[in-house]
């Protein structure tokens, strides 16, 4: 039997235009011990979305106005891309929806057993926590790079490509001593010891994507 979970800060945000279903899912998840917030439409939920909110979204796929897939897309563009679990009333889930399953989200029918729903919520919570941590790390890393001046960033981009000071000076049309000065400043501001460490940090922050890393470049 399901044990009541200790109170936690994560919230399940439920979005469904069918008030009757909305209420029944809210009741179930509350009874199990989750903190729940219910919304009758996607736009209502998005209007309340704040960066500090953690947990996951459980949404109906078919809704008048903004549907579930559109809600998911809007979340992804937002500063707080919470994981989304789709519930659908469809008996046979259409092929398009099946294809979406390759993504990270869960698709459940509205009449799926409770255990499946609860497991999906747990997975989504874990994913949210993980992604949230990664986002925070990345952010603090990027803050360190933010301290560099425009010229220092320029020099850095040449350094991580393994170019010599003399070449960099020629490329940027500046004095070789000035290049050295910039390098000293960079290592001091980023508190790194070696070029190898510098390269790793730049990679982690995804600062200068090399051609091929990102098809858009």
């Amino acid at each position, binding site marked *: 039997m399901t044990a009541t979970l200790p109170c936690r800060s994560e919230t399940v945000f439920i979005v469904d235009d069918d008030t*009757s279903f909305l209420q029944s899912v809210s009741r179930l998840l509350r009874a199990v011990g989750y903190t729940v917030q219910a919304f009758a439409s996607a736009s209502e939920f998005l209007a309340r979305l704040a960066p500090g909110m953690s947990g996951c979204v459980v949404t109906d796929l078919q809704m008048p106005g903004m549907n579930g897939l559109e809600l998911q897309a809007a979340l992804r563009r937002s500063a707080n891309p919470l994981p989304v679990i789709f519930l659908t*009333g469809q008996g046979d889930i259409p092929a398009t929806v099946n294809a979406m399953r390759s993504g990270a989200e869960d698709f459940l029918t*509205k009449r799926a057993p409770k255990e499946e729903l609860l497991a999906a919520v747990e997975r989504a919570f874990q994913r949210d926590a993980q992604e949230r941590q990664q986002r925070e790390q990345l952010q603090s890393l990027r803050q360190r790079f933010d301290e560099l001046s425009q010229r220092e960033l320029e020099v850095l981009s040449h350094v991580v490509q393994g170019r010599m000071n003399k070449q960099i000076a020629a490329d940027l049309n500046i004095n070789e001593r000035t290049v050295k000065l910039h390098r000293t400043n960079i290592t001091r501001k980023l508190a790194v010891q070696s070029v190898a460490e510098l390269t790793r940090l730049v990679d982690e922050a995804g600062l200068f994507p090399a051609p091929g890393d990102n098809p858009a470049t």
Partner: protein
Amino acid sequence: MAALILGLMFFGVPDSHAQALTNELGVPAKRVLMIFNESKDVPGNILLEQALRAEMQQVLTNRIEFSSEYLDASHFSDVEHFRLFQDYLGKKYAGQKLDLIIVFPSRDYRLAGELPDALFPGVPVVFVAVNEMEVPEAIRKHGVTGIVQRFDIRGTLGLIMRLQPDTRRVVVIGGKSDVDRATLGRIAEASQALEGIEFDFWTNRPVAELPDAVKSLPEGTVVLLSTVINDVNGQTFYMSQLAQTLAPVASVPVYVLGGWVLGSGVVGGSVVDSEDLGTRAGQLALRVLNGAKPEDLPIEVATKGTPMVDWRALQRWGIKESRVPAGGVIRYRPQTLWDQHKNLILVSSSVLLAQAITIAGLLAQRRKRRWAEAEILAQRMELAHVARVSTMGQLSSALTHELNQPLGAILRNAEAAEILLQTDQPNLDEVRAILADIRRDDRRAGDVIDRMRTLFKRRSLVSNRLALRNLVEETVALARSDAEARQVKMSVQISPLSPMVWGDRVQLQQVLLNLILNGMDAMDATPRSRRSLVVQVRETKDGYLQVAVSDCGTGIAPDDAAHIFEPFFTTKPNGMGMGLAISRTIIEAHGGDIRAERNTPEGTTFTFTLPRMKPEKAKAGLPKTH
């Protein structure tokens, strides 16, 4: 509203008493002034006014005060009299608050335009007229609406030929005034459609000479009474006066254009039905009284009459009742044939007995044919059933969704209740609320199933009185979830108050559902933001209700337009090509028609019509209003 609130305050008082109090307490009744061009005793106007008042009072009981004024223009036609009448009205109603003016202008539109505009500016005006004149443009400037009923001359000539196919000559009796000449002109125009029939226009004989003249008309002739506002001697005759003088003495049947003339010995005609006209005018007046602006309501010009005959005249001229067209009204039929024709029936039955043997033989043949006909009908029913089931198949995934919604809610609620009951001190109030919700969702699921089941049933034709509004709304509800899944915006617009039709509910639903699903199919390639489907119910001028389903889809290719209603014609990869063919069979069996038109800039509108039930028959279906 105010009356309702007061009514509630005095809810302890008996009804009639409460109403009297309401009026004493100063809730103003509506004041309606009726202005007639004629004198008080014009038969057509009496029926018209009665029906109009009845219609208005049925909705607004005890809350309308009517005043009537008569210009009596037939007897006093000089300018001075009109001026006196206007002065009289101005003085009499000075300081009175009028809510509506209803004008029976006959042929004088000044009564509906200039006069009320000068005396009662700002008071809305509704008129109702039976004439052949063009509605003057100027009247529209005054913010006036109304109904003009034309004489159905074409329909009356058609009825004459139907009742008496041997007719060779029509004697038309008419007058000399402008109005008389306008009516005669229209009769002459319509006469050209009847080849080989001779038309005589008697306009130069004083009415006093006519009774003698119609006494000896030869067989194969009929008399048609036009209007005689002035005969050659300048005398005025009402249609009913003419009919009463001529019909009883004429040697041939007499036909008329106004329904109020029936009973005077005439056969009938495709006539102006004063009661129906009064009812329609009453409905229009109510709309204005309830706040609609007259200038927003177009002036209706009705041209279709009601076939109406006097049963006794049919007997007199030996015209078979079976010749009266379907939908025709037969007046003055005695209660039982037995009372009237006991002897005739006894004699006939002995003749019938002698003929029985012959008939028995004929019957055997006839039965064979009947069986064949029944089989065809059964096949058609079967086909309609198959088409219906396939239509439902298209809907089934959407319906699954609609069913899974309440079923899912029931499951989640049950699970929640289980968990609640496992705790040490279960919250029983919450559990009770859950059980109530489960019950409600169960009903919701049941409703979906009921709606499906009526459509799946295999059945024969059943004709009933149907409220078209409910029928449309239920059908749209069936398609609603499918529309949501396909991102189609669906809307319904129903303009008549309570449109009633005769028909088979399931079959009509099938037609509408088919059109709605077709419309959604046609929009598969339309961008989502533009996918919209509109179902509209309108009333046409000739007494039909029109249901239109418009989409913004790909439209019909011009080459296909001629074939879409043919069986086995389809443009869909999986289509059977029977939907529209069956729809047409069904609609035509209901006395209507169905057609498709291209919309500009895009899409198609499918429209079908159904004969509207007459208001007096439909009354039982009207919503009750305070």
